[in-house]
């Protein structure tokens, strides 16, 4: 009987050990800033110094669960457009304000919102996103967008901000495609917070030193 009680003590000790040896909760150990990830990719055949002017689309595409919802222009969107404009100017590019003149680089911004958890190839949901911004906006009616690269597969759970730089100087007239020469993606907690816009643009551009006039 005494031995039996000691066995129960051992069992209780086992449970205590299991409790104390539980797996570290990784996401609980991350701040909001640490949870954010910035991914950029570019067409390595392109020399960004060969372009001089740029313009950013005047609103932001909102894509929810892979479906285009609307073009929006809220405070976050305007702050992001302003921050990106400033970043491009600092890199030596000229903002083309005259809408009668086509810029050499066009910049599209999208807010991507997903409500589910799963492993999704980036190409799946933004390989086709370019269609949400009619190339007519850039003066190329009837064109599509061409992405010369694809992204890896990651698990994602929430919103993302996507920025694309398009080559408007060299449209592919044989395929009617506008080449996307740089893509930046920011994801994670607080990605749509206005207070994080500067961090987001700087993170995307700081790792893209080749974007320089």
């Amino acid at each position, binding site marked *: 009987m005494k031995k039996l009680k000691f*066995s129960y003590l051992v069992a209780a000790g086992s449970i205590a050990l299991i409790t104390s*040896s539980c797996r570290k909760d990784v996401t609980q150990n991350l701040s909001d800033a*640490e949870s954010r990830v910035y991914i950029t990719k570019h067409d390595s055949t392109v020399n960004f110094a060969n372009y001089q002017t740029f313009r950013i689309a005047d609103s932001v595409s909102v894509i929810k669960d892979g479906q285009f919802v609307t073009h929006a222009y809220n405070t976050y969107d305007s702050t992001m457009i302003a921050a990106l404009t400033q970043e491009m100017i600092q890199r030596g590019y000229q903002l083309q304000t005259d809408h009668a003149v086509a810029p050499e680089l066009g910049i599209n911004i999208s807010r991507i919102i997903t409500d589910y958890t799963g492993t999704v190839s980036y190409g799946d949901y933004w390989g086709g996103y370019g269609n949400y911004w009619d190339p007519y906006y850039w003066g190329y009616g009837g064109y599509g967008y061409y992405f010369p690269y694809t992204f890896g597969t990651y698990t994602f759970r929430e919103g993302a901000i996507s920025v694309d730089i398009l080559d408007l100087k060299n449209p592919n007239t044989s395929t009617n495609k506008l080449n996307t020469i740089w893509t930046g993606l920011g994801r*994670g907690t607080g990605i749509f917070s206005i207070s994080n816009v500067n961090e987001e643009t700087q993170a995307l551009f700081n790792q*893209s030193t080749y974007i320089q006039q």
Partner: protein
Amino acid sequence: MRQVIKITLFFAAAMIITQASMAQEGLQLSVGHNAATPLGSSFRGYVNKPSFRGLQESMLFGINNHLRVGLQSSYNDFYQKYERQVYKSTDGSDVSTVLSNSLQTVPVFAKGEYSFFNKGFLRPYVGLGTGINFVNYDQFLGGFEYDKHYTKAAFTGDAGLLVPLSRKNNSGFRFSTSYNLMPFNKEGVKNLDSWNVQTGFTVPLK
């Protein structure tokens, strides 16, 4: 973690069965805390901090006064967070992220132990085991998880000391150290060998 619970339930059920029947002799249950230090440049490149989140359990049957055979399992959670850096991804993209590496190992061994003394206050022993290792590989880019599970071979060798509660008692505290040889070659990590230290207790079940 689910595997650990399953293994614990198995040991608990076995303990209850043996207590109820009192038919088997020589069974002993050992439970303890397991601290592990990763070894090897590849494993340490993934996680170089020791794991203090771990446990070890064994149920061994005494064949004679010196030799015991049975099952042993352990669990360890390795974790390390790296400050934000820009990584070159395999697809050519640049990824700025805080990287968190998390890896759990659950080796289950068929094990034999040889005890040099079966009486006295200090009873040293040595052991060898071979079995399978359930590995949970987790890598977080920021808050985004990449998760894989693998089953691999595992080997262990240990040396320890049983300190019984009294001279005639086989229950007592158990202190040991072990080397776990865990072949692995996935996700850019080669071998999950570790050096371990266990502190726990042993209770006979007969």
